[in-house]
C-alpha cells in the first residue's frame, strides 16, 4: 500500500526512518459505541508518526476521525489495541507533550478566561518558566496567529476565525511535541482557510511541531501533509498511506498546480469514490 502512494507522488523523501522510534504509534485501535445497538467506529487503526512529520488524515464525514483523535490523545479509551506516545501508552490520560485542538473549538475555549488566559491555560503543564515569561510567550503566540490587540478580549468577543486561532495558539502553547488538529479549518471561508493553512505550516516549521491534521478536505490534506492516511468508511481503518513528496515551503498557487499535487489528489479522490461506490469499510479484508 505504501509504495503505491509513494510512486504516485514521485520521489519518496518522507518515509519514516525505521531506526527512529515513532513519536506516536497506534496499534490496531478499535472502538465501538452503544450498548444495545452497537456502532463499530474504529475497526483496527494502525499507523505511526515520526518526530517532525506533518501527517494528514482524510476520511469521509462520520467515519470516526474525531473518535480516532480522542483515542490518540488518551481522552477516549479504546476497546482494543493501544496508542503509545513517546514510547509510553496514553491509557492514563493525555500525556504532557501532546496537545489537541478540538473540532468544536468555540465551545472548547473557556468563556470565563480572556484569549490570553486561554492560551495561558494551554501552558499549565509548562513549569520550567516564570509566570511573566509565560505571559510573554503567550502574547508572542497570539501575535503570531494575528491576534495582536485582542489578548484581553474574551473569546466570545471575537469572530469564529479568531476563536479558532486562539484554540490553535493554545494547542501550540503547551510546547507539545505533537499537536493533534481536528478539522481546524472546516468552518472558515476559502480565503481565510488558505491563509490559516499557511499560518499553520509556518507555525509547524517555526516550532518544529509534529502535527496530525484531520480533515475531510482532500486538497487540504495533500497541501499540508508530508504523508496522508486515508481512512475507510465506518468502521474506520487506514486503507492507504501516501507520501507527499512536494517541496516546502508550499505555495497556494504553485503547489496546487504542480503535477505531483494533482496526481496525489487524483489518487485519494478516486480511492474515496471507489469506497463510496463499493461501500467498502475497514471491516473488509
Amino acid at each position, binding site marked *: 500500500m505504501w509504495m503505491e502512494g509513494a510512486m504516485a507522488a514521485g520521489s519518496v523523501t518522507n518515509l519514516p526512518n525505521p531506526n527512529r522510534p515513532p513519536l506516536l504509534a497506534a496499534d490496531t485501535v478499535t472502538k465501538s459505541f452503544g450498548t444495545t445497538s452497537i456502532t463499530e467506529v474504529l475497526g483496527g487503526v494502525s499507523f505511526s508518526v515520526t518526530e517532525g512529520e506533518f501527517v494528514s488524515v482524510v476520511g469521509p464525514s462520520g467515519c470516526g476521525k474525531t473518535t480516532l483523535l*480522542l483515542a490518540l*490523545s488518551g*481522552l477516549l479509551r479504546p476497546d482494543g489495541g493501544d496508542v503509545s506516545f513517546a514510547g509510553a501508552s496514553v491509557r492514563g*490520560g*493525555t500525556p*504532557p507533550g501532546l*496537545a*489537541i485542538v*478540538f473540532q*468544536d473549538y468555540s*465551545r*472548547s475555549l*473557556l*468563556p*470565563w478566561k480572556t484569549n490570553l488566559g486561554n492560551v495561558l*491555560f*494551554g501552558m*499549565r*503543564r509548562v513549569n520550567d518558566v516564570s509566570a511573566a515569561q509565560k505571559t510573554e510567550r503567550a502574547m508572542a503566540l497570539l501575535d503570531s496567529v494575528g491576534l495582536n490587540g485582542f489578548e484581553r478580549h*474574551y473569546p*466570545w*468577543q471575537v469572530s469564529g476565525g479568531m476563536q479558532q486561532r486562539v484554540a490553535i495558539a493554545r494547542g501550540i502553547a*503547551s510546547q507539545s511535541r505533537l499537536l493533534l488538529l481536528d478539522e481546524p479549518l472546516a468552518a472558515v471561508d476559502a480565503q481565510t482557510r488558505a491563509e490559516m493553512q499557511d499560518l499553520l505550516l509556518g507555525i509547524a516549521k517555526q516550532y518544529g511541531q509534529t502535527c496530525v491534521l484531520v480533515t475531510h478536505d482532500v486538497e487540504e490534506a495533500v497541501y499540508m501533509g508530508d504523508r496522508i492516511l486515508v481512512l475507510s468508511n465506518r468502521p474506520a481503518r487506514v486503507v492507504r498511506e501516501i507520501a507527499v513528496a512536494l517541496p516546502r515551503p508550499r505555495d497556494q498557487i504553485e503547489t496546487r498546480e504542480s503535477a505531483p499535487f494533482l496526481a496525489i489528489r487524483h489518487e485519494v479522490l478516486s480511492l474515496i469514490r471507489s469506497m463510496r461506490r463499493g461501500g467498502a469499510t475497514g471491516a473488509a479484508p
Partner: protein
Amino acid sequence: MIWLHRAIALTLIVTIWQIGVWAALVPERFLPAPWTVIQALARILTSPDDMRAVAMTLLRALAGFALTVPLGIALGALAAFVPQVERALRPWTELLRPLPPAAIIPISIFTIGFGLKLYLFIITFAAIWPVYFNTLAAFAGTNDVLMRTGHAFGCSRTALVREIVLPHALPQIFIGIRIAASVALIGSVVTDIFAGQTGLGYLLFERAFALRVPDVFALTLICGLNGMLFNQMVLLLRRLVIGWHDQMMAEAAA
C-alpha cells in the same frame, strides 16, 4: 434616557394614586395620599427606634443569607457529585420545598424557640432551595467539550473542579443566589410578623392594628426598598465573582 423613562413612570403612578385618593374610591383613612405617606416615611426614617427595627430585619436576613448560600452550594455539590445522595434526598426535597416559610414557624418555635436562631432556621429553610437546585443542575450539566479540554491540558480531578466545573457552574449558581436573597428578606419579615418582638414585620403589624395607615404604607414601601437594596448587593457580588458573564450577557443583548 432610562432615568427619564423612570421619572415618567413614577410620576404616572403617583398621579393615579393621588387621583384615586381624590375620587375617594376608598376612604382616605385607609388610602392615604402620597404626601401623607412621604411624611410618615420621613418620620420612620428619622426615628431611631423604628430604624433599629428595620436594621434588625435586614441584618437577620443578611445573616440567614450568608448561612444559606454556602450551605446550599455545599449540599447541591454533594448531591451532584454523589448521585446516591441526590436520589436519597429527593423525596425530602420534594416534600419540604413547597412549604411556605410561615407554615413551618409553629414547629420551629416548638423545637428551637425564639430569637436569632429561629430566624436563621426559617430563612435557611426557605431560601436554600433555589441555591440547592441551581447548584445541583449547574454541576450536573457541565458540558463534555469543556471537561475534555480540562483533561487534555492535564487537569487533575481537583484542578478540573477548580478550573472548569466551578467557573462553568457559577453563573447558574448565581441565579439561585439571587432568588435566595429575596427569599431571605421575605423569611426575615415573615418571622418578625409571626414570632418577633422586634423588626420591620413586627412594626408593620403593630401599626396596622393601631390603624396608623400612613405608617403601614411607609413600612411596606421600606420592605420593597430593602428588597431592592438586597438585589443590588447580590448584583455587586455577582459582578465581582463572574463579571465576565455579566459582560457577555450585556453584549449578547446589545
